[in-house]
């Protein structure tokens, strides 16, 4: 008897067990998604589809809009941006800047805890920014914190930053989406760890990241700002193909998608249960002209080309009405913007022709326009080509794949073959300094920054420097208004347009925004249950 039991399973039993096992596995396989759906319905899940995957979830080492967009939900900064890019308090409740823009003092929110239970305090702030400004860490955004000379923990609830030299835009650097506060306990675990395991104080906690598939976040029940109604679960999925992203929205697989391409807006607007969210971006689009080379050395030629392009027609034909002509060297949503010419640079073919003649090119000339190879960019280039053709300027279009374009654009002047460059710029700090300095400062020529026009005007350089010497907004505004006027008149670029940000939202979704800087804000994202 004992031996028989010891033998264990008979053949028949084994078969039965195997069959049951297989059936069970199959059921759990099939049941998995259903079970998951049931769970998801009990706990509200909001699914968001964006155009790419995040690269890192270490905010100080992120410089792509997607990573920054995900980090915004997990972390808080001392300061942050409202959906309209105005500075707002987050972990700092109030702050003072010295008049010389060298000392910045922040009073911190009390009783806040990181997602791992570590308390938030002045020491945590110091630890974060000491790491960020240390060049040895080789973090992608370290130049934002280079101006910092020292950080003092005044007491548990007060921290003071001293700068090497005046930097009037520093508050915007603190509000920049990279300037988030990471849990000191997580920081202690090293760079590799925090890039994949973000721990902050924000409205959502990090759950998981499956590269190429999804990032999952869960509502932080202990979030310091109470009385909000975020979804229990936030799923962010990378969907590269525009048409697929729109299909997800229309099919109900996603409640918020960004971006919605202009050509799809009609289809989305007509569908029931979805709306298109529009917001003016802080992007400025332009054609840079190489000011150090012929034929663009003469300001009259550059002005002529500005007269030759019909911005309203561009808006209608290419942007389907989701744009407006630039009326200054930066978009109206940038802090420190002031209008230079109402309605933008006028369209006047006769004037363009006479200026070309005065500039020494009565018969026009031939030139090359470098640009990206996306469908909309190509159409934009073709339209500009036609317009310039009418004043005798023959434009060869040279579309390039993004990485190649970047490589040739950033060559130093001696090797740089560029003539005209179709480009767009959005200042990630939301401030006039970062809107003008990278594009128009004499020290910003490639490969240093993005002055693709190789433009240099000593007066402009001086004003840009002066704008950083104080933190008083009124004085800074004056500098940037004057600089804008000078840059406008010098016309180192053809001023094209400022575009709208377009996102798709399903009815019943609240608190999800596409931001003017091309990131998204899901900090308040929730579902009303309708």
């Amino acid at each position, binding site marked *: 008897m004992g031996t028989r039991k010891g033998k264990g399973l008979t053949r028949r039993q084994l078969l039965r067990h195997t069959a049951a096992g297989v059936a069970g596995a199959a059921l759990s*396989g*099939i049941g*998995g*998604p259903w079970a*998951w759906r049931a769970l998801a319905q009990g706990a509200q899940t909001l699914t968001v589809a964006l155009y*790419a*995957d995040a*690269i*890192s979830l270490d905010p100080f080492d992120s*410089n*792509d809009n997607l990573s920054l967009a995900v980090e915004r939900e997990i972390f808080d900064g001392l300061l942050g941006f409202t959906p309209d890019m105005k500075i707002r308090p987050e972990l700092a409740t109030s702050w003072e800047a010295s008049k010389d823009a060298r000392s910045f003092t922040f009073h911190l929110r009390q009783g806040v805890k990181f997602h791992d239970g570590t308390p938030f305090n002045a020491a945590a702030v110091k630890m974060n920014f000491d790491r960020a400004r240390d*060049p040895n860490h*080789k*973090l*992608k*955004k*370290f*130049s934002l914190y*280079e101006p910092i000379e020292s950080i003092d923990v005044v007491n548990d609830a007060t921290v003071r930053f001293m700068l090497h030299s005046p930097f009037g835009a520093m508050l915007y650097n603190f509000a920049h989406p990279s300037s988030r506060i990471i849990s000191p306990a997580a920081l202690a675990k090293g760079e*590799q760890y925090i*890039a994949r395991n973000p721990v902050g104080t924000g409205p959502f906690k990090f759950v998981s990241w*499956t*590269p*190429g*598939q*999804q990032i999952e976040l869960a509502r932080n029940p202990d979030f310091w700002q109470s009385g909000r109604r975020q979804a229990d679960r936030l799923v962010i*999925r*990378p*969907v*590269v*193909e525009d*048409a*697929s992203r729109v*299909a*997800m929205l*229309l*099919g*109900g*697989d996603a409640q918020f998608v960004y971006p919605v391409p202009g050509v799809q807006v009609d289809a989305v607007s007509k569908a029931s249960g979805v709306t298109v969210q529009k917001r003016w971006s802080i992007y400025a689009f332009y054609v840079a002209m190489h000011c150090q080379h012929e034929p663009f050395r003469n300001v009259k030629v550059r002005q002529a080309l500005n007269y030759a392009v019909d911005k309203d027609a561009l808006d209608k034909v290419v942007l389907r009405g989701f744009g407006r002509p630039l009326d200054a060297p930066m978009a109206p949503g940038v802090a420190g913007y002031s209008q230079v010419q109402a309605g933008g640079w006028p369209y006047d073919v006769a004037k363009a022709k006479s200026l070309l003649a005065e500039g020494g090119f009565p018969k026009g000339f031939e030139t090359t326009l470098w640009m990206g190879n996306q469908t909309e960019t190509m159409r934009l280039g073709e339209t500009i080509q036609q317009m310039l053709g009418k004043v005798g300027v023959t434009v060869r279009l040279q579309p390039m794949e*993004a*990485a*190649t374009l*970047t*490589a*040739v654009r*950033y060559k130093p002047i001696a090797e740089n073959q560029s003539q005209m460059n179709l480009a767009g*710029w959005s*200042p*990630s700090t939301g401030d006039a300094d*970062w809107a003008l300095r*990278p594009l128009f400062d004499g020290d910003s020529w490639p*490969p*240093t*920054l*993005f002055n693709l026009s190789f433009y240099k005007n000593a007066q402009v350089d001086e004003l840009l420097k002066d704008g950083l010497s104080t933190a008083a907004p009124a004085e800074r505004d004056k500098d940037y208004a004057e600089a804008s006027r000078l840059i406008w008149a010098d016309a180192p670029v053809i001023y094209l347009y400022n575009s709208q940000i377009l996102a798709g939202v399903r009815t019943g979704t609240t608190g999800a925004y596409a931001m003017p800087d091309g990131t998204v804000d899901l900090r308040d994202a929730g579902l009303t249950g309708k």
Partner: protein
Amino acid sequence: MLRFLGRRLWQIVPILFGVSLGAFAFLHAIPGDPARLLAGPDATLAEVQAVQARLGLDRPLPVQYGYFVRNAVVGDFGRSYRSGDPVSRVLAEHAGPTLELSVISTALAVVAGMTLGTLQAVRRNTLPDYCSTVLSVAGISTPSFFLGLVLIYVFSVNLHWLPTGGMTQLQSVVLPGITLASASAAVIARFTRSSLLEVLGEDFVRTARAKGVTERRVLVRHTLRNALIPVVTLVGLEFGFLLGGAIVVETVFSWPGLGWLLVQSIDFRDYPVLTAEILLFSVEFLAINLIVDVLYAALDPRVVYR
């Protein structure tokens, strides 16, 4: 047979070395600076240089290649420029989805293609033949992104039967599987048809029929088996291509496979991931060719390897 296998396996080593050198040289020849791309559009020169140093891109190219070979020999392909994760882990994360999609769509393509092809051959020059010929020509000539989007709009957006994309549920594989399978199925059908027709005209088929073998047995035992050799070659090749990641289909369906990874890595000039992916594809093709050669012997007793 064993000696044959041994010899073929040995040949893989110099081939892979050549591929790695070619891939490295080619990737570095195309313009693009990974540090600049990774640092972001508004990075300062100092930031770009910091990223460059972190990635080891400040070293001369031959030195970089030397390091690569030295580490690759022991199975270390370095870290992805983009994510900082070990390349082997990145490839493993994306190989699973691609393998799943390839196996399912190849199975679909083989079943559908051979059924269709056999039907065409047996009923040649009749209405069913013409209809399925039209179907397979349509299958070959419909671009996969178009078919994929049509399927999404019909079955996901309008009927809500299947998810629009991603790899979130078991059913997620259905639409990309069908999309990928359609072109392969069409090619397999054409091959099966012509190969079957050729064999059906052979003397031994006539002999089999003459001695009273049933038509069904003639087809399955005598004809199909002999007609299979070119089809097996084709299926092997198609499977190889699919294993390389179906770039278009994976993009349309947000399927996180190797094709998706390839596109993303090219955007960032992620040399370590790209080089490893190219090597992986080479290994896959070499393996599939070997398996196909072995299958010949199994299908045709006249084929003997020494």
